[in-house]
């Protein structure tokens, strides 16, 4: 799907490094057969949804969500899971998770107006009270049992986006991030669904931990490492 998603390559490379075999595809059958599905994305929400419809991937993605196998959304991929977005008019998303996608507005830090897109390294934290960094880091793993396991609270990750998701259920928010007076959801987890607004494949060794966790989640006893496969639902047209 040529909707400007240029980052499936780096997702693939991150998976390689942690020993996860991936196939880049836009084929519905592949998505249905996958052990896990990764939905990356860069570019506009409406173009992405259009492309997903055109390739008949909307139902397979909803099926993947319901099937219990890991479904991982990255950047635009997180936004696409939501009910709707206000980018360039109102558009319906996959509706896998209830929530809206809205634009950063009126971002200030003192007298300075902050820039959009939100570009660069910003901190992800488990609790809103961790915003000011005043809280002590919990002794135990703040994200144990999730795809963020093993990552320290208040770690910087790499972001590049102008819109952010507002999931209806606050219980699904895995991490928050703060930018210019706006606190927003930087990652979610709901059962088998994990999605992050940042790019874990561009966030250095810390970000690779997310992929490592995914690889670990897919490993089953008796199955050799080389056979775990995750399918990246996008196009190889780029």
């Amino acid at each position, binding site marked *: 799907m*040529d909707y*400007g*998603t*240029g*980052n499936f*390559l*780096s997702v693939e*490379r*991150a998976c*390689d*490094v942690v020993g996860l075999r991936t196939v880049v595809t836009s084929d519905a059958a592949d998505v249905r057969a996958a052990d896990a599905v990764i939905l990356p994305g*860069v*570019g*506009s929400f409406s173009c992405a949804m259009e492309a997903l419809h055109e390739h008949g991937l909307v139902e397979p993605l909803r099926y993947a969500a319901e099937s219990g196998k890991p479904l991982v959304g990255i950047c635009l991929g997180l936004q696409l899971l939501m009910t709707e977005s206000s980018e360039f008019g109102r558009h319906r998303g996959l509706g896998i998770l209830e929530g809206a996608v809205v634009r950063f507005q009126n971002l200030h*830090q003192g007298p*300075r*107006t*902050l*820039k*959009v*897109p*939100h*570009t*660069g*390294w*910003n*901190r992800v934290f488990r609790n809103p009270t961790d*915003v000011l960094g005043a809280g002590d880091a919990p002794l135990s793993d703040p994200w144990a049992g999730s795809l963020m396991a093993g990552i320290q609270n208040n770690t*910087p990750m*790499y*972001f*590049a*986006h*102008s819109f952010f998701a507002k999931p209806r259920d606050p219980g699904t928010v895995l991490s928050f*991030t*703060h*930018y*210019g007076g706006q606190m927003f959801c930087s990652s979610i987890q709901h059962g088998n669904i994990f999605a992050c607004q940042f*790019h874990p*494949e*561009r*966030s*250095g*060794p810390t*970000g*690779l931990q997310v992929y490592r966790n995914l690889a670990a989640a897919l490993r089953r006893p008796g199955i050799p490492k080389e056979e775990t496969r995750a399918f990246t639902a996008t196009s190889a047209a*780029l």
Partner: protein
Amino acid sequence: MSLSVRIIPRMDIKGPNLVKGIQLEGVRVLGTPEAFARHYYENGADELLFMDVVASLYGRNSLLDIVRRTSREIFVPLTVGGGLRTLDDIREALAAGADKVAINTAAIRRPEFVREAAGRFGSSAVVVSIEAKRRPDGSYEAYTNNGRERTEVDVFDWGQHAAQLGAGEIMITSVDREGTGRGFDIELTRRLAEIVSVPVVACGGAGKAEHVQDVINEGQADAVAVASMLHYGLQPGLDGSTGTNTRWPIGGKGTLTPCSLPELKAWLVKQGINCRYAAAPSQVYSDVQIHCSHSGLRHGELPQRRACV
């Protein structure tokens, strides 16, 4: 502010080599881009920037090979620029592993190209690069071809326009300051940062850590690209190639106080700047420390190897 300022090592590439343009001298080979890129990644680079300084067809294939190899090993954003003229050029660079492309000449000659590129690949993949030269009346004119060709276009008008067309970032290089080690053009950066709604990357002129601090605080840069100051701060023989240099004079009246990337970042943090820095990064060359003083080097003088203060 919770969003850190980005420090981006910039590597100029000619064929298979990492080079540095020296004012009035031409080009000096420093080593291989892959080795430098890997070193910077391991030492906390927030992003990496490869600029093709030759921009020929031969050079392009060489550059894409370097991008392919580098992007297998480094997991931070990689921007590639230099001679990208068409959507196909951009597509190839991204397919080789670049996350963003920097476009200058093609964009200023035909601004719609920015809209087309942003539409096709996403704004966050498109950086418009502007080379600026100050005119006697205090205005700034945009140049192309590494500061050699005039365009008569006003830098601030163009920057604003490029952002409206969909550029995700504007990278601004002062032609007057680049390669001199005399610091960034603060006024240029600040005026641009105040007028455009997208992040601004300051590029060209850093000779010591204070310059980076100034362009962040007074210049309001969101990111800073640094070349010589970091490259010369590395131990010679980094990759065993015979092209590495040990001398630090940079031509003309320029002086340089080379610094390692961790040293630069630690220093910025100490000055109260929000910069992504880990206290004890893995140092590949920790047995040799380069003296990082504020006195600067005189022309031809080699730095003394002492513990860094």
